[in-house]
């Protein structure tokens, strides 16, 4: 909300500097988002008349201008603007003037010619630019004022400050000048008072009332109507138009402006109907009918329903959505002679419901859904009549009595018990009753001392304050958050911080992978509808009901598409040699009888070696990443099992196991998927489910004694058919080696014509060692035979 300081000062002197007021507003929770200084820096600027324009003898782009600054002149000014002519009135900043932004004007020479000041543009004076936003000087209307008149006086500008306040939803009372001023006055220890008395035109029974029938009292507990005759039809006077403009509203006509003014001043949204255009000459308030349609003032057709409070004319035809927006039919206009003024109170939750359903926002809705003072209506009507009557042409204005229809109970002033101990216990302060009373009283709370605290009556403009905790907050706010001593929680004294196993493991994984040279990526959770097919993933992903963009309409069931897009992003920028990993949540549709998606946390690795790398480089990197992780995470019996995996190359993919637990898969991205994402190279892929990993068996952290005796190594090359996985050969041989086999690794694979189609030689290195002795030749020889024998059981022959 924009609050001009001059307007706030209607209610209290607010005797403090602007800087201090900003500080206080922030400390009160009325956050100042911006401060606008209006009409400052104009003090020395005067109106001047252009007498003569001459070329500068030594410059092309600036000219010499003689002006009359009020003493007849001529005064020579050097000027670079070209949009004015002899006889024009323009603003002059004479030598010694200080313009906005602390820009001091001095006498200076420009290319040998003296300039006795500066002719100004609107921008330089921080004034609104004239229509069309002319380039150059601000040209004043002819005959505006004689030369020498201070510009501010000529334009009727008073220096002012406008605070742009961010009012939180719990402070509907601060959505008006009266409310903001009340907080400020209380904080400054100043008295706050209504700036006007009952000085409006008296209610004349002869003017009469319009019939008002409220059928939906639960939605509209209070509806007041006031008939006003002799409405002035001119524009608003300058002071009113200026206040509205500063507060961010456009002046339109006297009746509309007064309506807006009263809302901004007192917080009561109101509506002026042209009584002579109101069918039946009255108002009916009822629930909407199914299928009923109303065109609101913003020219949109609104479909109403039985949850909505509809304002109708006396004939039952809708003229407005109650408390949110009027319709066009009975809107006041230049020909309006008689007004029916509505000041009502609507049920906040009903307003919110209707507003949400219609997607309709308005100043009125904002106030009503947060809670308007239910008792302010009559004062607002008074104020409306008094203001309108005080305008030019308002002397003919007459008003009828307030027709105050209350078909339903209004919220009554809350009574709350406030315990002093509770205040001190929650805030960590030691305030006595006198201090608490002094903080709450000026805000309008009525306090009666009772044992241990107060009985508090809440003012009707603070109805959202309905619990003790709300009063505790008010005490804290008025005392000042910064005055509350900062302490360390004593609590019950039992606390130990730390990360849990999953959190530690996640960090461990990140350390291993970054240590291996991979960069961590973070991709969006959303996929587009084509992504599943493009990445050859199984169909079926959780859909977003209201995505901002269709490309973000699915929750990812896999990290694959996101990482492929990340690779592509880099390739498009000529970045090669890419190795990314990501840890993030993926989503599957909920299981039977559940509504939340099946959410799990995945680790994925995607590597794209640079062009020219060997065709197996990508998949080898992925397998190695798995080996590194399996070692680092102490997985028990890590293993690969060839298996097709959606999205991966069917001949180069494998499930990953830790013991009996499947934890993920490794391989190469299907050669048709990469190109679908604009990638021409082979992409290595590793995926591990952190949830499954949590269930995997780990090697115990128990120390295994290491032998001090020498080792004996021998190499064995076995020829096997391709259908026996190398891992199976190693497992078989390892089992045969028993406890004395310290290590067994594959160090070479050979395929060639000599071996025949579908066969290969797998070279293994076995290392034997005993804990308690040096192994003898005969022992080693029989161990070697055992290994060969076990391999033979798989059909593997020792290669000569």
């Amino acid at each position, binding site marked *: 909300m924009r609050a001009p300081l001059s307007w706030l000062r209607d209610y209290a002197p607010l005797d403090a500097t602007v800087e201090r007021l900003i500080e206080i507003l922030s400390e009160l929770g009325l956050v100042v988002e911006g401060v606008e200084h209006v009409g400052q820096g104009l003090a020395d600027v005067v109106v001047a008349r252009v007498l003569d324009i001459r070329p500068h003898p030594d410059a092309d782009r600036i000219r010499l201008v003689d002006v009359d600054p009020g003493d007849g002149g001529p005064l020579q000014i050097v000027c670079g603007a070209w949009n004015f002519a002899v006889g024009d009135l323009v603003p002059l900043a004479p030598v010694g003037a200080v313009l906005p932004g602390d820009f001091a004007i001095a006498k200076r020479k420009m290319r040998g010619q003296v300039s006795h000041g500066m002719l100004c543009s609107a921008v330089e004076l921080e004034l609104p630019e004239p229509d069309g936003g002319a380039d150059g000087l601000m040209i004043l209307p002819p005959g505006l004022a004689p030369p020498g008149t201070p510009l501010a006086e000529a334009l009727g500008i008073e220096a002012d400050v406008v605070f742009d306040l961010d009012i939180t939803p719990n402070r509907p009372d601060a959505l008006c000048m009266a409310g903001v001023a009340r907080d400020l006055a209380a904080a400054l220890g100043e008295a706050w008072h209504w700036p006007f008395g009952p000085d409006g035109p008296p209610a004349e029974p002869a003017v009469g009332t319009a019939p008002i029938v409220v059928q939906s009292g639960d939605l509209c507990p209070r509806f007041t109507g006031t008939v006003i005759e002799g409405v002035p039809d001119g524009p608003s006077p300058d002071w009113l138009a200026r206040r509205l403009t500063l507060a961010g509203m456009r002046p339109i006509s006297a009746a509309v402006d007064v309506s807006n003014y009263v809302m901004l001043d007192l917080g009561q949204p109101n509506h002026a109907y042209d009584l002579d255009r109101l069918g039946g000459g009255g108002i009916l308030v009822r629930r909407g009918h199914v299928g009923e349609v109303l065109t609101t003032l913003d020219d949109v057709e609104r479909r109403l329903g039985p949850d909505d409070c509809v304002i109708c004319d006396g004939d039952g035809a809708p003229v407005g959505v109650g408390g949110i927006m009027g319709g066009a039919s009975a809107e006041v206009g230049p020909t309006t002679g008689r007004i029916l003024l509505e000041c009502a109170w609507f049920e906040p939750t009903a307003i919110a419901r209707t507003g949400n359903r219609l997607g309709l926002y308005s100043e009125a809705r904002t106030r009503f859904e947060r809670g308007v003072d239910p008792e302010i209506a009559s004062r607002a009507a008074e104020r409306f009549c008094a203001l309108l009557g005080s305008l030019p042409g308002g002397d003919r204005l007459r008003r009828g009595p307030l027709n105050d229809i209350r078909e339903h109970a209004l919220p009554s002033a809350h009574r709350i018990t406030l315990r002093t101990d509770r205040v001190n216990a929650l805030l960590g302060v030691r305030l006595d009753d006198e201090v608490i009373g002094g903080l709450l009283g000026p805000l309008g709370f009525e306090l009666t001392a009772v044992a241990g605290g107060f009985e508090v009556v809440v003012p009707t403009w603070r109805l959202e304050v309905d619990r003790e905790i709300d009063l*505790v907050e008010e005490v804290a706010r008025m005392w000042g958050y910064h005055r509350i001593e*900062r302490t360390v*929680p004593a609590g019950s004294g039992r606390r130990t911080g730390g990360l849990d196993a999953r959190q530690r493991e996640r960090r461990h994984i990140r350390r291993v992978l970054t240590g291996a040279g991979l960069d*961590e990526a973070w991709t969006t959770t959303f996929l587009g509808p084509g992504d599943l097919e493009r990445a050859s993933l199984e169909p079926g992903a959780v859909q977003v009901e209201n995505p901002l963009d269709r490309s973000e309409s699915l929750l990812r069931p896999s990290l694959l598409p996101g990482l492929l897009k990340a690779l592509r992003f880099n390739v498009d920028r000529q970045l090669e040699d890419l190795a990314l990993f990501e840890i993030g949540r993926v989503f599957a549709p909920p299981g039977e009888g559940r509504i939340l998606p099946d959410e799990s946390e995945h680790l994925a690795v995607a590597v794209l070696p640079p062009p020219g790398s060997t065709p197996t480089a990508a998949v080898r990197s992925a397998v190695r990443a798995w080996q590194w992780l399996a070692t680092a995470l102490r997985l028990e019996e890590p293993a690969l099992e060839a298996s097709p995996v959606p999205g991966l190359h069917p001949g*180069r993919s494998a499930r990953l196991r830790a013991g009996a637990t499947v934890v993920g898969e490794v391989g190469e991205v299907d050669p048709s998927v990469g190109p679908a994402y604009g990638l021409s190279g082979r992409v290595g892929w590793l995926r591990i489910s952190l949830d499954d990993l949590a269930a995997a068996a780990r090697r115990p952290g128990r120390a295994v004694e290491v032998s001090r005796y020498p080792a004996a190594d021998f190499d064995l090359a076995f020829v096997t058919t391709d259908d026996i996985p190398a*891992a199976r050969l190693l497992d078989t041989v390892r089992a045969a080696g028993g406890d004395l086999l310290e290590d067994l690794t594959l160090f070479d694979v050979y395929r060639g014509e000599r071996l025949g189609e579908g066969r290969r030689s797998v070279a293994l290195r076995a290392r034997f060692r005993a804990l308690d002795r040096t192994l003898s030749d005969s022992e080693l020889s029989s161990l070697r035979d055992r290994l060969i024998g076990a391999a033979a059981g798989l059909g593997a022959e020792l290669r000569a």
Partner: protein
Amino acid sequence: MTDITTTAKELLEAGRARLAAAADLDRFVEAEREILGKKSALAALNSRLRDLTPEGRRVAGEAIKAARDALAEEAARLRSDLTERHRRDRLAAERMDLTELSSAPPGPVLDWSGRGTGHLHLVTSTRDELEDTFVAMGFTVAEGPEAETDRYNFEALNMPPDHPARGMWDTLYLHLGDPGQVLLRTHTSPVQVRLMESGQLPIYAVMPGRCYRRDTPDARHLPVFHQIEGLVVDRAITFGDLAGVIEAFTTAFFGPGMHSRLRPSFFPFTEPSAEFEVTCPICAGAGCRTCSNSGWIELGGCGMVDPNVFEAVGIDPEEYSGFAFGFGIDRLAQVRSSLSDMRALLDNDVRFLSQF
């Protein structure tokens, strides 16, 4: 006349045979061009039409078109078969025994790369640092689902349906359950509710995690972002404790000489509520562009847990009190690293990733 129709039929049969005989994709493409291309015998037939009577032209024209369409359809079918066979052959030829790789000793993971160590994402390293700071202050780290029910994201946090404060968050809903029932969490507060519901008191925990809002991305906002919240529930916890913890965190995380201040604000789930600001980490309070010359930057929100929230999770607000706080991890990372556009966090440009 009839002879054009006959020729068309003959060309159709010959074409079929020719296409079917193509053994691989290259030869198929060649055959297709010869049969259906501009210089094909079928195309040449068209030029003979002009010598015919209008009726004859119609009949013959239809015959040519029928042959052409039949051949085109056949070609499309065969092409897709051949492409698929080609693909299968290639995949079969590339079949590898991956256990040959996994049975060898693991060499460098990226043996094709000359690079050094990799890099954690800026958001991760910031999150780790935050977690470590709070862990040192005696907090645990709690996590929860990113897809949540309305109850955990709003209702249990003192925001019943149609509560105007819900408008503070633009929510993404999922096509699950009843309309509006399942959503992507707009903050990590649902984890607080789950923690409190678990009934294990006292609670000293922080909850980092990914959150979602229906916001158009710009330099300072992403629709997918990360947040960290803190929750303390214990006996005799005060607002002064909240201010003290925020201050201790500020100094521990940002360094000595860095301070915090609280300003009244509103959140439906806390009361009293506050915004908290910290000394601008760019200028150390001297005033700069980042902090609009105020010397302070707004970091997040905080407050005392609202009694209604305690009641929703079955904790007696007369016996226990507590506070909560929260702020954006990405936003903090952005400020600390002077990152002008937050969208860079999602690009995963390796030149960006490798800076942190």
